[in-house]
C-alpha cells in the first residue's frame, strides 16, 4: 500500500526533473526564436501544474480550490505568453 501511494509521487518527480533537463537543453543548444521560448513557457506550465495537482494534492481537493489554483496558473501563463508573443520582432530575429 505504501508503494502504491508513493509511486505516483516518484513519477511526478521524474517528470518535473526531466522537463527541467529538456528546458535547459533547449537553452544550452543556443536555440532561439519564439517557438523555443513558447516551449520553455509550456514546460514551466506543465511542471507547475504537476506541483499543484500531485505535490499540493489538489487533484482530489474540492473543485473550488482546484479551479482557483489551476485558474491562477492558466491566467498567469496566458498573460506571460501573450506579452512574450507581442514583445516585438527584436527577439525573434536573434
Amino acid at each position, binding site marked *: 500500500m*505504501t508503494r502504491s501511494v508513493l509511486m505516483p509521487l516518484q513519477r511526478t518527480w521524474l517528470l518535473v526533473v526531466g522537463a527541467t533537463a529538456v528546458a535547459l537543453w533547449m537553452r544550452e543548444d543556443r536555440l532561439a526564436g519564439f517557438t523555443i521560448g513558447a516551449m520553455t513557457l509550456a514546460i*514551466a506550465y506543465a511542471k*507547475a501544474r504537476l506541483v499543484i495537482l500531485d*505535490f499540493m494534492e489538489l487533484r482530489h481537493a474540492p473543485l473550488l480550490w482546484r479551479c*482557483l489554483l489551476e485558474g491562477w496558473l492558466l491566467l498567469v501563463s496566458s*498573460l*506571460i505568453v501573450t*506579452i*512574450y508573443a507581442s514583445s516585438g520582432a527584436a527577439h525573434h530575429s536573434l
Partner: protein
Amino acid sequence: MPGQYPIGAARTGTLPDADALPLSAAARSSASPRRLPGDRDVWIFIYAELCAFGLFFVAYMVYRSDRVDLFNASQLGLDRSLGALNTILLLTSSWAVAAAPRAARLGRIVAVPRYLAFGIALGLAFMVVKYFEYRAKLHAGITISTDMFYMFYFCLTGIHLMHVIAGTIILIVIWLNARARLYHTGNTTGLEAGASYWHMVDLLWIFLFALLYLLR
C-alpha cells in the same frame, strides 16, 4: 461534546482509538470525498502570495518587452547551471515534503521526520547555492542598480529567498512536531499546511527559473 463519552473511557485509552478510527478509514479510502489538504486559512494566504508573485511575473514581462535586447544580453551573465541546480534541489525537496503527509496518513510515523529532514537539507542547500550566486555577481560588480534586468533579478530572487527561509523555518517546526510523534493517521492538518507552503515556494521558483534564466 461534553458528556458524549464517559470520562472513564478517556482514562482507559479507548476514546482516542474510537476517535481515530473513522478519520483513519476516511484517509485511507480511495472513495473518500474531495478534501483540501491542511488548513483553509493557510490556502487563502498561499493564494494571496501566488497572486502577488503573478503580478511580479507580469511586470517583469512588460518591462522585458520594452528592452528585449538588454534583458537578453544581461541574462547571459547569469549562471544557468546554478539556476538549474537550485531548481532540482527545490523540486526534490518538494517531493520529499509531499511524501511526509502521505506517510503520516498511512501510519508510518517514523518515516515522517526523515522525509522532512531531507526536505529541510535540500532547502538549506538552495540557500547555500544562492549565496554563492549572489557573491559571484557582487564580485563581478553586478548589483541591483546595474540595469533593469538585474533590478528584477535581485528583487524577485531576493523576495523568493525570503520565502525559502520562512518555508525552511516552517519545515523545521513541523519536523520537530513529527519527531515528537504529533502527526499520525488521525492528525495531519499542521503537517499538510506546512507542506503546502513549501510547495508554493517550489511552484514560484519554477517560473522564476524559466523567466530569468531561460527565456530568450
